[in-house]
């Protein structure tokens, strides 16, 4: 298996799917000539030409809507947002149109659309560029949303997202783009809605999505070396659909849970998961369910404070100790 970056893994997925299916095209700001604002789409213009790799003006509502319209007609657009924050100016197209067209048409229409781009803080770009709207998306029937944390996962899930006949939102992370990981040379896909146990453990379940998975893996190391606590790390990978069985099984095994996310706490994904755990595994819990989220404030610009704002391994480990 080759070691490649998260960025290269996405690039491979896009390239493979574009080769496989002529209906797939890529559209977004700076995706073509510029080679991608984060170089995720590097070389794709050269490989597929300007018919299928398309630079857009800064018109998020416009090109998101073009993606939805083209998808209704049977194409399979991959729409890149430079940041998920920028979907806020295309909200109507994503949350009203992409999400509701199938339902409102009584099933006459489907929207095989992928919307992808990074959604994260931690890079000192301030509040408007650090939004993490996975909870809004998951709150919207009609949309699917995934947050892969590793090169292997992002490649396999991106390919599934492109083949999916419903709109899928893929949330990447600029801090993960350079992370390396093993990716097989042979083709593979990872079904949406399948969690992955990233580290087996017996004493406590650390459940996370996106970059928080990496944070939890570090926290698990700390807990093992400093406290002899054997933590299990559950990577949700996909939020809607959600692998509830894997969550519940892990909780029933360890009897203790810390839910970790980089989103803000109120009405975050983990609020729903906490509800489901008490609903389905109440009798197995030996302690209250705990959550670690970003500090509930707009994303701060100042770097030292932003580091404090986003969950880190020490905060996760501290919270785990509180319930053991």
């Amino acid at each position, binding site marked *: 298996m080759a070691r490649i970056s998260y960025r290269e893994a996405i690039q491979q997925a896009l390239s493979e799917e574009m080769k496989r299916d002529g209906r797939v095209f890529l559209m977004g700001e700076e995706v073509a000539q510029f080679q991608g604002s984060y170089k995720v789409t590097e070389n794709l213009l050269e490989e597929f030409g300007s018919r299928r790799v398309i630079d857009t003006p800064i018109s998020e*509502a416009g090109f998101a809507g073009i993606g939805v*319209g083209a998808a209704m*007609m049977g194409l399979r657009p991959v729409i890149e947002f430079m940041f998920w924050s920028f979907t806020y100016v295309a909200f109507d197209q994503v949350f009203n149109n992409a999400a509701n067209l199938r339902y409102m048409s009584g099933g006459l229409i489907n929207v095989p659309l992928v919307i992808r781009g990074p959604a994260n803080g931690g890079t000192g770009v301030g509040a408007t560029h650090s939004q993490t709207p996975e909870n809004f998306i998951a709150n919207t*029937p009609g949309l699917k949303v995934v947050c892969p944390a590793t090169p292997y996962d992002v490649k396999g899930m991106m390919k599934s997202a492109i083949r999916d006949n419903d709109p899928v939102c893929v949330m990447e992370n600029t801090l993960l783009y350079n992370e390396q990981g093993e990716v097989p040379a042979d083709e593979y896909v990872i079904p949406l*809605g*399948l969690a992955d146990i990233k580290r087996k453990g017996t004493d406590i379940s650390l459940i996370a999505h996106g970059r928080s998975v990496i944070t939890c893996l570090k926290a698990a190391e700390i807990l093992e070396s400093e406290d002899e606590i054997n933590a299990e790390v559950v990577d949700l990978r996909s939020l809607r659909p959600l692998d509830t069985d894997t969550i519940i099984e892990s909780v029933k095994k360890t009897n203790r849970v810390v839910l970790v996310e980089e989103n803000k706490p109120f009405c975050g994904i983990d609020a729903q998961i906490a509800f489901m755990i008490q609903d389905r595994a109440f009798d197995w819990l030996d302690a209250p369910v705990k959550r670690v989220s970003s500090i509930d404030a707009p994303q701060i610009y100042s770097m030292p404070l932003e580091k404090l704002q986003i969950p880190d391994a020490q905060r996760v480990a501290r919270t785990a100790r509180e319930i053991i």
Partner: protein
Amino acid sequence: MATKTKVNRRKPGNVAEFDIRSCAQAKVNKALAADDKIALYRRMVAIRRFEERSLRAYQQGKIAGFLHLYIGQEAVATGAVSVMGAEDQVITAYRDHGHALACGMGMRECMAELFGKTTGCCKGKGGSMHLFAPEKRFWGGHGIVAGQTPLGAGIAFALKYQQKRACCLCFLGDGATNQGAFYESLNLASLWDLPVVFIIENNGYSMGTAVQRHSAGLPLTKRGTGVGMESATCNGHLIYEVRAKTAEAIARAYDQSKPTLIEVDTYRYRGHSVSDPDQTYRTKKEVEDYRKNRDPITIFREILREEEVMNDEQASSIDREIRKAAEEAARFADESPFPPTEELTRDIYWEEDNPEEKTSRGTIFFN
């Protein structure tokens, strides 16, 4: 303050003002046989009688929510849709019953949708503002003002990508011209030479705000100028002119893959939605003047009489027949069942509706 003044937006003229002869001579109209003309007339009448019948149903409490009637604007959708090619597509906003019927949707499934019945075109899931009939190349029916304009550009993008000689007619109201999504669509369509025809149905009011009070830099065709888009104005009370102007734009889309912006002058007789007050922003007299002097159906009937295509007796017989059909559609809708409860969670995800081809796992509904 202008807000306290009732704005008389235009002085209605009369039929004689219209240059009927020149647009009747347009190729697309000269090609019409007598039967085609009667079919156009019939369609316009069908839209009007359908709308009148749905208004009654609304007043009887059979239809929920909003009901935006197309009465007065019938020549626009009927005329534009009638010159479409076999692979051309249509998308519009929430005042959509006329466009759906013009595209060939039956009165029954249209009325049943308004009633929220399972026999509706969208099983009662879309409602008045969200009618769809993709098999008739009708892509909705969109409730958010201008939200359909990027979709229209996207449909045109797909047609071009698929290398089809076809275009998309994207209808919008005058109110939609002040939404950002519309500007973005205009620019993208012009920048990428998308085969789309944006048809602004300027009925004079965005809800209750007269066009002079909502838009600077009139006429609205100027909105295309800045992005280098060809534009045209059109008398929407005259179906021949709607056909001629739309056909020119479609030819531009086919031959040059270029978009066009058409501003159609039209008028609605009813309120924005039927439950909205109608006398706060315009006078009864204004509406009556339009009804009397510029009614698209009356005008077309007179033209057809002059052309000796249709006499009054034929016109009355068409009217009787269509009233009956509208009544029958209302009866059908009334007698149809509401969707069963399980329909609540169907038609949300393609995958869930097609379990044999499902690849994803996990929980998708959280009920």
